[in-house]
């Protein structure tokens, strides 16, 4: 099965929640040193709930689609719920299995998001 399934291609071509937020309460960024990809996540938290979220940065289809899918998934969720997300949950969102080399691309979004949530 090709890695480039409809869900991934849809989110890569039409990313949801893409762009920096003007006045985020939380922000975080992470780097994938094997390909130089950089991702940033901005969040506006209200009463412990993710009210708005935006991702920015360049990357491959997998990392971009993963970021798009993840932002959609966590919108309206509580910080604790998001921090409890596992790599397995991200793979479920993507709907594919990733080789060790591409796993970093797929999980960069979660790493970035958790960094953002832990920021002040």
């Amino acid at each position, binding site marked *: 099965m*090709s*890695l*480039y399934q409809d869900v991934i*291609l849809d989110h*890569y*071509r039409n990313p949801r929640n893409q762009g920096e937020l003007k006045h985020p309460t939380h922000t975080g960024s992470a780097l994938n040193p*094997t*390909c*130089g*990809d*950089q991702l940033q996540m901005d969040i506006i938290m209200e009463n412990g709930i993710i009210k708005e979220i935006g991702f920015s940065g*360049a*990357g*491959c*289809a*997998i990392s971009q689609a993963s970021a798009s899918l993840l932002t959609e998934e966590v919108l309206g969720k509580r910080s604790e719920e998001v921090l409890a997300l596992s790599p397995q949950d991200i793979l479920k969102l993507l709907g594919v299995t990733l080789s060790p080399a*591409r796993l970093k*691309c797929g999980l960069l979004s979660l790493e970035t998001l958790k960094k953002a949530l832990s920021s002040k």
Partner: protein
Amino acid sequence: MHKKDFPIFEKHSDLIYLDSAATSLKPKSVINAVTDYLSHASTNISRGLYPLAEATTERFEAVRKQTALFLNADPTEIIFTGGTTQAINTVARLLESKVDTDSEILVTTMEHHSNFLPWKELALRKGCTFSLLLLTTSGEISLDALRSAIHPHTKILALSFVSNVLGTINPISEITSIAKEINKDIIVIVDAAQAAGHIPLDMKALNVDFLAFSAHKMFGSTGLGVLYGKKEILETLSPVDFGGGMVQDACAVKPEYKALPTCFEAGTPDIASVFALGAAITYITALGIENIRTHEKELVSYAIENLKKIFGNHITILGPTDLEKRGGVLSFTLNGIHPHDIAHIVGEQGICVRAGEHCTAPLHKSLGLSATTRISFSVYNETKDIDRLIEALKEAQKILLK
């Protein structure tokens, strides 16, 4: 050209291998040299006094001579190491006594991390200046820029022979002359990982002080590198690795070490890989290094012409446009498609290319790129490999572009 010599194609007949800059495929004769030693002659060198071990020692030293001949050097100038990376790290430690706080170490922007970090770390250890020589827009070293970058206090110049990303072949002998004109004591170290087995290497003509390469990128096995060191300089240096095989008198208050090059080879080396290197050099010599160079140049020319024809201004090919200044490495970016996706999609069709920053973060940063796709050629590649790649790239565009 010579696919039949490489057993990998018996198992993967459709394989299009365009990643020889990472590691080359291995011809049958090299594989045989390894299995023959491991099966029938697995004895250690230097110490054994029985015939099998003596024969291994003899064969080992014969490869050293063969390597010296391959480089137009003296056998005492050939040090076997674990690879290019280890060789350069060793040189950086060997030269520790040659630099102080007033010194400068100069490297170029195109360096692989293995010819960048050991020097940056040496500069940090010694508190000396670490400088970067910037490249021209076509990814070359400007000799004028070099002239103004070298000062009387520039003690070390480290640069690659062939860039592993841009493909640029640096004019090493001219560079060495200029450097030594300004500072006769400057030590020039050349990373020849992408040059060995692709273009002729003549130590006398190049007049470099150190040159390193890996056996596995020139049809040999992994785990072995060659470090050439000019005799006059090696004689002024003290070993940095200590242990078996390299010592003359270990009991003396100040231990005495063996003559060149043994004093720089502590411990049992990768003997099987040394025999593989011998077979690899024999293979290269039989094909003729000039023929290999011509073949790779033709492939690069065909690739540039056809990639540009098909993808027009959607493709950006890095490095010099003059084919005489290019080795068998070609990196590019394709508008709107990340190199990782390219490598993955063409990989699903049996085409092996490399994506990323290729261990050259300073170069990619200077180009404003996070990643590139790289193809690299060897004697088993044909123009139809490039045709297949182009078809696969079109497929990638179809999948990923809106």
